């Protein structure tokens, strides 16, 4: 109050250029710097646990670096050249992508179906929703141990059941494809419910009156699902796909515990890239090459992220054309609701691993959605 009174007195004699008081300067500083200060904790933490390790890993990758004996000679990009010619590296990439595809695709389809079922009027809703999230609460180690036992080749539950039907036992650990399926099963067991819950949240925010009018127009439940539900949850779908991709490329616990002796099967039939990285560092004790693999994996995830981003941007624009009419109608009828749902997206995106670039594509889609809802 006093400042407002005093200000004219001070500024007027000072000709055209008013001299700001300390308080004013503080105000300006507050206006300009505060936002940065508020977000600083994240960035400081990110620099400490994300950026610094990233840089240091690159530094290590340029050296002969023994796990126990420490830093050795500077070798430049020799580690990169050697890893790129390493058959086990490419094998691990193949396994990673294969397990990723076998797990993610069925997982997302299942999650969507489960979410659609849960979206119906069920009795004891909370019970069902909690139940599908339960596997997510169990630690991956426990999941891996139980499944490893079930997938045992000679004494496992599944092969026992198969043999009682007269089917030959499947070599769950020694054959490539069965081992990938076994690991994908563990991943799916853990993540399907989680993704289903996110998709369910998206489905719940689709206004019910659209379904009603569609039903009046004679659309069956399948038609309503494919023409209304799916297009409406597209942004969330993109988010789920992005996080599933990042997670899928970093699978470690499940293959590690599926064969607790070797790193990813006796003949590396299910050795993922992260597992190979681990083997390189802690069994072969070559820290330099392990860092190289870490960096190559980072670049690969970056690449996947960019592809993801391009595709998702494309889907978003396409969706704008096709679903424009229905969406406009929706927006008019329940704009605040839709806004809340769109605004929820960036917040969810923060949960994605901060260090990975693909996370950026999720917020990227969000701004595209927001203006639309405002139209």
């Amino acid at each position, binding site marked *: 109050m006093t400042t407002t009174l005093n200000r004219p007195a001070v500024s007027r004699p000072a000709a055209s250029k008013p001299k700001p008081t300390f308080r004013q300067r503080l105000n300006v500083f507050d206006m300009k710097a505060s936002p940065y200060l508020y977000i600083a904790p994240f960035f400081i933490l990110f620099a400490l646990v994300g950026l610094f390790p990233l840089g240091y890993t690159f530094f290590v990758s340029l050296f002969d670096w023994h*796990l*126990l004996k420490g830093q050795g000679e500077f070798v430049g990009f020799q580690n990169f050249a050697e890893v790129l010619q390493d058959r086990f590296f490419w094998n691990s990439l193949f396994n990673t992508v294969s397990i990723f595809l076998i797990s993610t695709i069925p997982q997302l389809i299942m999650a969507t179906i489960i979410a659609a079922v849960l979206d119906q009027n069920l009795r004891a809703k909370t019970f069902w929703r909690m139940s599908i999230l339960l596997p997510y609460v169990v630690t991956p180690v426990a999941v891996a141990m139980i499944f490893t036992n079930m997938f045992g080749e*000679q*004494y496992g539950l599944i092969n026992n059941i198969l043999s009682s039907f007269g089917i030959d036992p499947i070599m769950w650990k020694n054959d490539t494809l069965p081992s990938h399926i076994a690991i994908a099963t563990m991943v799916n067991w853990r993540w399907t419910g989680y993704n289903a819950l996110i998709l369910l949240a998206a489905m719940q925010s689709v206004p019910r009156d659209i379904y009603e009018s569609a039903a009046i127009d004679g659309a069956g439940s399948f038609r309503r699902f494919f023409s209304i539900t799916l297009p409406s949850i597209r942004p969330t779908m993109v988010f789920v796909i992005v996080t599933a991709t990042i997670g899928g490329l970093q699978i470690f616990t499940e293959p590690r515990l599926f064969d607790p*002796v070797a790193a990813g099967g*006796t003949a590396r039939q299910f050795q993922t890239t992260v597992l190979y990285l681990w083997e390189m560092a802690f*069994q072969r*004790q*070559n820290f330099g090459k392990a860092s190289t693999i870490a960096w190559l994996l980072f670049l690969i995830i970056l690449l996947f992220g960019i592809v993801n981003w391009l595709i998702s941007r494309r889907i978003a624009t396409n969706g704008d054309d096709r679903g424009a009419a229905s969406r406009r109608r929706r927006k008019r009828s329940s704009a605040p609701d839709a806004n809340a749902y769109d605004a929820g997206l960036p917040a969810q995106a923060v949960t994605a691993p901060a260090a990975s670039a693909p996370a950026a594509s999720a917020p990227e889609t969000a701004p595209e959605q927001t203006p639309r809802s405002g139209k």
Partner: protein
Amino acid sequence: MEFSRLRKISAIAGVASLALAAAGCSGGGDKAASADNPVTLTVTTFGTFGYDDLYAEYEKQNPGVTIEATNIDRGSNARTDAFTKLAAGSGLSDVTAIEEGWLGSIMEVSDQFVDLKEHGAEDIKANWVDWKFKQGTDPDGRVIGYGTDIGPQALCFNGKLFEAAGLPSDREKVAELFGGKDATWDTYFKLGRQYKEATGKAWYDQSGFVWNSMVNQMDEGYYTKDGKLNVEGNKDMRAKFDMLAAGTAGGLSSNQTQFDWGNGKAFVDGSFATHVCPAWMLGTIKGQLESAGGGAASGWDVADVFPGGASNWGGAFLSVPKSSKHPAEAAKLAAWLTAPEQQIKQSAAANNFPSTLEAQAKIVEAAKPNELFNNAPYGAIFESRAEGVIAQFKGPHDSVIQENVFGPALKMLDSGKATADEAWNEAVKLLNDLVVNN
């Protein structure tokens, strides 16, 4: 330097106490534990060590000492654990058990371990079998490990299955059957084929352990005595590999998973009839039988014979890493745990065979039968099996070669995916990838 840094870290971690600071200043001679100066010692072992009762006894005898023990399922995982912690520069237990197989790798960084000579190793040197003490000594003459047990190999067999196949089941007759003192691998595989013909079942659980036994028996294993790799072009080793491959191709292997055996079920359902048995394996088999609900009735027994002559596989050491905050107390505990009197108790609990002369003699004298193994006098059997054992030189990558080079190659044989040639070539290729060009 080392200690001041250590002190700083512990202060930051919020665990600094007056006692700790005192330990930091006084270097190796930290203040002895007492009721007024409580000390917590951590111990990491692996496999079946049989120390649980001994910890309690030591705590009782030494007021103020608390022991926090961790046991890792198997040696190779303990190796990874130890390497990771060595690399991190912290986290190793005050007393860390080291397996013979990866001792060579530890020797490369032996300066990270306390020289036990500073804590009286010379005074008790004569306790041990000569070669065991030497194994724990690094090239500079520093003693970094006290031997716990040794792994002289005998042959385990299943009397019931032998009988069913028309073979003798009495352990002396079995020893004779295999050739007694002149037992050879040829006889072993010949009998295996005979057994397979009679019963249609496998002779051994998987090729890996048989292979370890064959290699450990050679004068020079994966490394020559002067530390050079000794695999490629090694005709002797190749001949043994071919012999094993031929046996496995003939269906003698049950293709089990090492240290898993379907949670021990393979030991009770008659999957295989023989098993190579370094002394400590009796403890492992005991654990497997227990988890599968089998017992003495399962028919397992152990005979005083081993194909190809005396062989030692495994055995462990207790070491004290430099990062320990209580090196003197830790060394004292390690010395106590490996003293003859305690080794006898360890042997009773873990079914392994001690590495000190006095303990060996006492166990033979006591002639306590092993009930699980058809009352076999295991003391006398393993004492006899330890005769003529020569400590083979273990190179820095010995355990990697055993687990990660020959492991996959032998698995290819077991699952019938490769011929002897293909498997050997794969092993050589893996050796080049994992060890030579690492």
